[in-house]
């Protein structure tokens, strides 16, 4: 799905909107490119000139600190000019439409838009309407996709586990509302991971979730049993409203990752979390800061992966 919108006629990447339908060769190309950027961070001058003279607009229609910051750092390390726009507080509140905002910024000679929006499909919509030379990177749209997060999670898994074809991965938490989980699932299944599990109460699962190629578990003990990778999802406070869950305490008791529950996973399992964490709700501090945790590595890798995506899109 959406393969055509994301790819040029020659099969190279034109936009990054979703990992759903992207071929494995593209995912691997991004991960390999990211690997080469890891060393840039270790240099004294942390810059390469790949995007010199390019203008990148960070369009954040929804607040974000971590994702916006890592995109900004990544763009600057590629020597691009970066403009940050928090549109939640400017144009849209004056009644301007999404496409009007984009058209206005396009007129300022943008080369790339990095877009975060509260509605699923917003990045697709923009990609369908921008001029051919402009690239769109989805930095999170509604519940649909967060492809760079999914990619940096794959990068993290590959760094620690080497390959995907022999892994058992459990994703724990609020899949219903999670764009991160959807991107992780598409990436894992595309890269050949043989068993992807979802662990959550029924209220946090979409109907027909099994069509995404995952195994559904309601219980943590069986859900993460013998897993090589345990990915915890953020549980937003507002989920306590609307009768999705009774209380944070009960959620933590049954689905929060504690050292005790983690013993069901493989002894060398890694624990991941896209952040920001709710300690004591979905994850215990002893696990978050413990020896299985690779959560801070994810953040570091996030910069390299976003450099890879932006350079592959606009560096040619």
């Amino acid at each position, binding site marked *: *799905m*959406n393969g055509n*919108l994301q790819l040029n006629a020659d099969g190279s990447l034109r936009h990054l909107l979703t990992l*759903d339908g992207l071929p494995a060769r593209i995912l691997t190309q991004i991960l390999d490119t990211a690997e080469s950027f890891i060393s840039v961070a270790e240099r004294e001058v942390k810059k390469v000139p790949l995007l010199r003279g390019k203008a990148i607009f960070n369009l954040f229609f929804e607040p974000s600190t971590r994702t916006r910051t890592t995109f900004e750092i990544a763009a600057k390390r590629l020597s691009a000019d970066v403009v940050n726009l928090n549109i939640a507080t400017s144009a849209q509140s004056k009644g301007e*439409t*999404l*496409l009007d905002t984009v058209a206005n910024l396009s007129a300022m000679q943008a080369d790339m838009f990095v877009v975060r*929006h509260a*509605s*699923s*499909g*917003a990045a*697709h*919509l923009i990609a369908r*309407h921008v001029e051919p030379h402009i690239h769109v990177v989805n930095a999170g*749209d*509604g*519940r*649909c*996709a967060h492809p760079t997060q999914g990619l940096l999670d794959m990068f993290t898994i590959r760094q620690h586990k080497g390959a995907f074809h022999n892994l058992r991965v459990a994703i724990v938490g609020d899949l219903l*509302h999670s*764009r991160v989980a*959807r991107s992780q699932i598409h990436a894992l299944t595309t890269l050949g991971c043989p068993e992807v599990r979802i662990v959550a109460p029924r209220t946090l699962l*979409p*109907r*027909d*979730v099994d*069509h*995404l190629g995952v195994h559904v578990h309601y219980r943590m003990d069986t859900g993460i049993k013998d897993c090589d990778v345990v990915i915890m999802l953020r549980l937003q406070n507002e989920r306590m409203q609307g009768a999705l869950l009774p209380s944070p305490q009960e959620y933590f008791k049954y689905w929060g990752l504690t050292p005790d529950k983690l013993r069901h996973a493989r002894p060398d399992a890694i624990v991941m979390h896209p952040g920001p964490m709710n300690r004591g709700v979905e994850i215990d501090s002893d696990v978050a800061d413990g020896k299985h945790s690779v959560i801070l590595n994810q953040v570091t890798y996030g910069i390299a992966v976003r450099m890879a995506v932006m350079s592959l899109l606009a560096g040619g």
Partner: protein
Amino acid sequence: MKIRIRNGRVVDPASGLDAVRDIHVAAGRIIAMGAAPADFHANLDLDAAGLVVCPGLVDLSVRLREPGFEYMATLETEMRAAAAGGVTSLACPPDTDPPLDEPGLVEMLKFRTRNTPGPRVYPVGALTWKLRGERLTEMAELQEAGCVAFSQADAPLVDTKVLLRALEYAVTFDLPVWLRPQDPHLAHDGVAHDGVVAARLGLPAIPVPAETVALQTILLLVRETGARVHFARLSSRAGLDMVRRAKHDGLRITCDVGVHHAHLSEMDVADFNANCHLVPPLRSIRDREAIRHALAEGLVDAVCSDHAPVNDDAKELPFQEAEPGATGVELLLPLTLKWARESGVPLIRALDLITRRPAGILGVEAGVLAVGGPADVCIFDPDAPWTVSPKTLLSLGKNSPYLGMELQGQVRYTLIDGHLDYKRNHH
């Protein structure tokens, strides 16, 4: 004006006629079928050789967007589009701004439509004041002003007691109530069928029980009150099964489906195509097959266009923010023909679903070709291909899931009240 329609294949579902006949029209009425009456001299002679001549279509849901939404469409444009679609009678839902909840508004609308060329317009009155689901409207007075039925359109009716009272009050005057069954809590914020595509795209979902739970409630209240209820826009297999059982039990109910729902499914939403953001949502392929089967079986009483012209600005938004609906009054005929062809249903039975049977639901004199009856006639080429595009659609709304696609079946002439109201110039 005297008109002769010559050599056409006359198909009239009401009488079962399917044969080549000449039709003679004078003073707004059909005065003869077959041989011309003595000293009949036509002012206008329409050659219908190779064409189908059928009753003008009756569409149970056409939004004309007036009053209040003139930036989307106007009476003039949509009535012209309806005539171009072969529609000669239409019901317009009360979801205007303000809603059709006062006799004065309905009288104004009737007056405006009477003075605008195009189909006969039958307003559906609001069941509750401002469509808020709280207070009843003056249904009896609204009926006197011209309302043929009462509905909430797509507005929620949260309070079941209000629904019961509305049905009881309608029974008092034997007024029909048209309801689109949807539980407002289960559907809250949803924009797509609760299935594989919503799971994949992360779209807020409307589960099938939103339809079936509401249906069950309404059916129980129909048994209680004996109200004349018409179910609008059924979307699911489970919902159709419930209506089948209720009809089998002898309940006095009817139902319709939107013509797009007989062809499209959740799969068509899959690239965030906002033109496939419809109400109710396009459901699974199994649901669509059930709709097609229920049409062939005769369970569904009518097919309507659920015409909803939307301006581009309101559609060029992320899927869930986009205004729902599709322009459709010009597609009702070709999409019904497409379903009939694909399902092996005879033309006369397909036309029944868009002529005689919806006219029966409206309770008006329409949908038949009869000597002495009104000369509302649709003359079309059943095989002519045409491409749906912003240029070929006369409706101001260009929001069609079929943009760029070719359909078969093109209206050549539409007669309304004995006048040639529409004539296709190029074909």
